[in-house]
């Protein structure tokens, strides 16, 4: 039994209560152990990544109960990659939080942060539909705590909208699970895959309803139009580093769609065929357009970053909705990129916020470390808009290439390219106003702490994006393997149920 598989859940799940129990009165202690735990998570995720890269899916039978009766965790390349991404982002965000002193602006930050990591990792690793619901709850409640960290009227108001909207999603999740269970009698994902494939006639409509409800649940998480309404306010008003961490939260939705709609409701299933894909693609198109239109029309950098996040989810879902190995591989490449780039942008926006007091797109006098932040914003904007030389451009090429053989290729390509243009123009307008026009505004920069650790985090994320760019060759080869594994549902099912 490979205990490494559960380690990404157990480590933060133990560290968080210990922080609450022993360290709640000392911030330094919390910081040290929070960083240590996150570094530990990073190490674990690296081990998992190595393990997953060689060989097929591995299964962890919780409570030693055989599948499908107990809960299983499944480690494959996809889940290992998502956990690793979470850990990498986690350490970056955490360093920023400490560097910028965000964790001192409210209570229980580090405990909530560790719980948040636990929730995200748990969602990526589980092989059980109901357990996914549980971890959705964990990450939702933890994210709500992080989102309202520091308080403030607007933030709390946005927090209410966030939690209310997502609780709608949770309720729907239960409806979907109840329907699935009523039809199939199981909630183990591998078992579901088998049963859906063998579904007796007369059950198709009910199962499709369940599938579509589940799709909407994940679409809420992934901010897919028309279920994206919660995102702009939440991301724009959450503390900057929390919004940065949330860059991986939308990916939980994307991950779940990828997992469920290849393994269980794949396009090869007779019950649904391309039904879900046909719903996903138009929604993805509108999402991408809406996001980039939002970038163009945003009046603050924070909202701009939020809409850029929506737009990038649109592109991700477009690649995914093709449900081809090439499409999935491209989607995963872009997923990594957009997580890092989105987080980077939010951190930089927070640097601006803390120095200017606002992220509004208006000309104010230069701020402390103006030149450095300008350069960083330029880099992040390039990444976000998908301009060369950073990985956003390569991701865009991969997505375009993956969508090439479709009948609606002209439409899809036009959408991606026009939306990219909107993003470029929008980001250029905002950047030139905030960062360049400042030089035409009289006044001196207000003093501000230099926050070296925060910049280490920001540069670290930028370095990761550069790294992704340089190592694109090996990465895409690895992702091709991952996409192939995602489509090999037989191997997944065998790994989980083979011991039966």
């Amino acid at each position, binding site marked *: 039994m490979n205990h490494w598989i559960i380690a990404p859940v157990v480590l933060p799940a133990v560290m*968080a209560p210990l922080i609450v*129990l022993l360290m709640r009165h000392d911030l330094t202690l919390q910081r040290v152990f929070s960083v240590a735990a996150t570094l530990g998570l990073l190490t674990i995720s690296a081990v998992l990544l190595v393990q997953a890269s060689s060989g097929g899916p591995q299964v962890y039978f919780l409570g030693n109960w055989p599948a499908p009766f107990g809960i299983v965790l499944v480690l494959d390349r996809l889940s290992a990659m998502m956990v690793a991404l979470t850990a990498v982002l986690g350490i970056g965000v955490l360093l920023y939080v400490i560097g910028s002193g965000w964790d001192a602006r409210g209570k229980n930050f580090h405990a909530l942060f560790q719980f948040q990591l636990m929730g995200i990792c748990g969602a990526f690793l589980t092989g059980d539909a109901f*357990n996914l619901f549980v971890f959705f709850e964990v990450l939702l409640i933890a994210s709500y705590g992080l989102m309202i960290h520091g308080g403030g009227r607007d933030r709390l108001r946005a927090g209410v909208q966030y939690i209310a*909207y997502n609780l709608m999603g949770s309720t729907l999740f239960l*409806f979907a699970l109840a329907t699935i269970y009523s039809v199939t009698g199981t909630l183990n994902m591998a078992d579901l895959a088998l*049963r859906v494939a063998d579904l007796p006639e007369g059950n198709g409509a009910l199962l499709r309803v369940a599938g579509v409800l589940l799709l909407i649940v994940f679409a809420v998480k992934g901010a897919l139009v028309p279920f994206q309404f919660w995102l702009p306010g939440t991301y724009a008003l959450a503390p900057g580093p929390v919004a940065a961490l949330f860059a991986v939260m939308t990916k939980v939705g994307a991950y779940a769609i990828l997992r469920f709609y290849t393994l269980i409701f794949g396009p090869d299933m007779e019950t649904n065929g391309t039904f879900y894909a046909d719903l996903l693609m138009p929604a993805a198109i509108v999402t991408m357009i809406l996001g980039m239109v939002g970038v163009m*029309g945003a009046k603050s950098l924070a909202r701009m970053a939020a809409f850029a996040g929506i737009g990038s989810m649109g592109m991700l879902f477009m690649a995914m909705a093709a449900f081809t190995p090439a499409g999935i591989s491209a989607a995963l490449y872009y997923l990594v990129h957009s997580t890092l780039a989105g987080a980077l942008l939010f951190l930089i926006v927070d640097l601006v916020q803390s120095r200017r007091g606002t992220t509004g797109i208006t000309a104010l006098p230069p701020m402390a470390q103006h030149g450095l932040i300008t350069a960083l914003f330029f880099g992040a904007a390039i990444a976000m808009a998908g*301009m060369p030389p950073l990985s956003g451009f390569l991701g865009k090429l991969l997505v375009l290439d993956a969508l090439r053989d479709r009948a609606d290729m002209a439409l899809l*390509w036009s959408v991606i390219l026009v939306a990219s243009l909107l993003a470029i123009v929008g980001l250029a307008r905002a950047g030139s106003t905030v960062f360049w026009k400042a030089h035409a505004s009289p006044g001196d920069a207000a003093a501000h702490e230099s926050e070296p650790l925060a910049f280490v985090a920001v540069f670290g994320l930028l370095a990761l994006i550069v790294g992704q760019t340089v190592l694109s060759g090996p990465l895409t080869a690895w992702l091709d393997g991952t996409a192939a594994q995602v489509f090999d549902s037989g191997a997944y099912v065998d790994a989980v149920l083979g011991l039966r």
Partner: protein
Amino acid sequence: MSLALIAALPFLGALLPGLMIRAGRTACAMATGSATALALIGLLLHAPAVLRGEVVQARFDWMPGLGLNANFFLDGLGLLFAGLILGIGLLIILYARFYLAKTDPMGQFYTYLMLFQGAMVGIVLSDNILLLLIFWELTSLSSFLLIGYWKHLPEGRQGARMALAVTGTGGLAMIAGMLILGGIVGSYDLSVILTQKEAIQASDWYLPALILILLGAFTKSAQFPFHFWLPHAMAAPTPVSAYLHSATMVKAGLFLMARMWPVLAGTDAWFYIVATTGLVTMVMAAKIALFKDDLKALLAFSTVSHLGLITMLLGFGTAEAAAVAVFHIINHATFKAALFMSAGIIDHEAHTRDIKRLGGLRTLMPITFTIVTLAALSMAGIPPLNGFLSKEMMLEEATHTVWAGIPWLFAVLATIGAMFSVAYSFRLIGHVFLGPVRDDYPHKPHDPGFGLWAAPAALAVLVVLIGVAPMTMVGDLVTVVAGAVTGGDVTIKISHWHGLVPALWMSVAAVGAGLILFGAHLRLDALWLAAPRPEAKAIFDALVDGIAALSHGVTARLHDGALSRYFVIFTLGVLGAGWLAWSEGGHVPGLRNVLPIPGVALAGWLLLAVCSVLVAVLHRERLLALVVIGVVGLIVSVGFIYLSAPDLALTQISVEVVTIVLMLLALNFLPKTTPRESSTARRLRDIAVAGAAGLSTAALALALMMRDFAFPTISDYHLANSYSGGGGTNVVNVILVDFRGYDTFGEIIVLGIAGLLIFALAEALLRGAANKRLLEWVPELPKSGDRHPLMMVVAGRVALPITLMVGVYIFLRGHNEPGGGFIAGLIVAIALVTQFMASGFAWTQARQRVDYHAFIGFGVVIAAATGLGSWLAARPFLTSNFGYFRIPPFDKFELATAALFDLGVFLTVIGAVMLTLASLSRIAIRAGETVNTTAMDNDPSQPAPAKGGH
């Protein structure tokens, strides 16, 4: 030197200026220049081989899966362009050293310049069109930085954005074009693509690819109708204008057309699109140039015009015309860069570049005058300078060209273009340098130091040398380059005298008419100024601002925080998608019989329905609504009992009690009524949507209940193995702590987090603006005179040990009978909450020194530790173990690790509830609630004065 290194050197060089500026401006310039010089030397080392017709290559795999590789190759065309880029780059670095003011951040400038240079070199050396795309977009980005270099100037910022938007659009179109092209050929390598002319031109995708690629080329090279960005890019410092906007970047489009010429040219589509665009651009821009008063604007439009000329030549699709195009590229680069730098000198010295404020500089700035005159005469096409040679050849080619059956069109229009070119060139010389010396220059001009005029002078020398001895100077180069462009052998003969050919007469006519135009400039200018003409910038700005405003309007209105609208859209989305899923068919209704409905069930159902509706009806009266919610919860609990689910019933009822109590406490600080905010129409809409959702849910539930499982369910296994495998006869509890203990582990964490975040939230409220409101808070409802009533205190105290005992009992029996840690935790919490309610929080808290954070912490840690304990037995996380023991005098009893896990659940539940209570109490105290010193307001055991002892 490897080609990759040559392309990389400028990028590496971009790192130097930022550092070297600390050593001074000259050191900075020298360091920057050395990187360029090194790259140039590396390039020239390859020159002999290339001129022999060899192709130099360097290849590195980057993304072989996609077909994007770092492949470079160098042939004649690449050599020419790379030479221009690096050679003129070197001169620009020299020039900029003396041009930039002391206050300008020179390090930044050189960094941007080197980034640009690297991108340009990358374009011309790329063997892979995807790699080329990357460098292509990089030039757009670096030119954005360079145009906006003077950040405080609005023209710079706007010009930069406009250039980025226009060239960026083209770049995006080109991405599509290149991907299509690569798709046709099956490779993105130019060395492969260039051999596939037939396949490409026969493909259905040829025309889309052509148009998309040309969009990229035309926007970059400022061809009509995309030319408008270039004049605005002139807001950049002059070295930038000279480098990017005359010598290099704007030629990237030409380079691309030349590069792709072997496979894209030769079709009607190519001819009509490219040649026509070039012709229109040439004539139109030359005309506008004549009427520009800003020196740089004049040169900018002249550049556009000459780019049009070259585009037109490439568009002709003949090898001869392509060769002329190559020759003119060289000539234009020499004279135009010299002119730009001279314009910069004049601006630098006279502090103006307005032609109308200049004149008579001939004697004041003799060196500059000489340079400008030579270059401008070349631009006008006056023999023997190099511009004359290529212009003659261009006119010659134009006479051979038939446009849609009209043989004279190109010849006539090309002559007209040349005429304007002559006119503005003479205007440049005449109105700036000739005429009387004025006394109203903004600054008294004189020739600058050698450093500033050295670069343009070097170019002017080239203008003359190429003009006088073209074959010696560039004959071989043009031959090789033209060969590279056309993909075949081209023989070039450049000479001044071709005999009395039509081109000569056209040339003479152009010079003559041009001089007449120049003479009549004053009157023409008045006409020009009086005529209305579209202002590109205004249109562009209005367009972009319009799109931005529209975008803002749409997205801001959609995401304005109207939660009820979000929910309506959500619900409609769910209903719509659900209906689609259902309507594809495949449903066979279930065969179960409908059971008879007993009266009790019907009554409960009716009560539930009525109360649910009442919540909606009464929701403005919050207290009342809360009570009704409590009733709903109770009925649900009863329903669970009725359906034989005692565990659920117990859980539900205790959860119900705790939540209602906590919500009542919270409601104390909230308005007691909800204002009416929505119109009747809105409410009707909401009722319709909610009703549809409710009915659909009911229909779904009915459909599910009417049928059997399609497969045997996993719950049979749970029933069978609960006792043997889990050691408990209460399957629900065994599922909770064993079969699916991991779910429970997650759920107690959810509870724990809820407690922590409520605490943090209260903390944030107390530190935020809400604090002020709390301090000024006046209760809406009259306070009870007896806040801590005797009866409640006494009853609560009596009940406490009993309730605790019940809690322990419920906990212990949980594994086999209804109960368990979760329910027990809630029961104990209720007992404690009662004490707090009866005697006040502070009083009670003072007698119970526990921080509820610790409960949550302990609870989760114990649960996790129990799970981890199974690792010691080499079992997976949360594997349970149990055994039966007998310690006399007790009966046989069971010990299970699951009970330990359940203890964690128990503690976490207590902690979460109590921490919430504590948080609410903090708010209450802040709101003025007094801290009582005695347990009850009227304590019979105390003397009377203790009454109200707050």
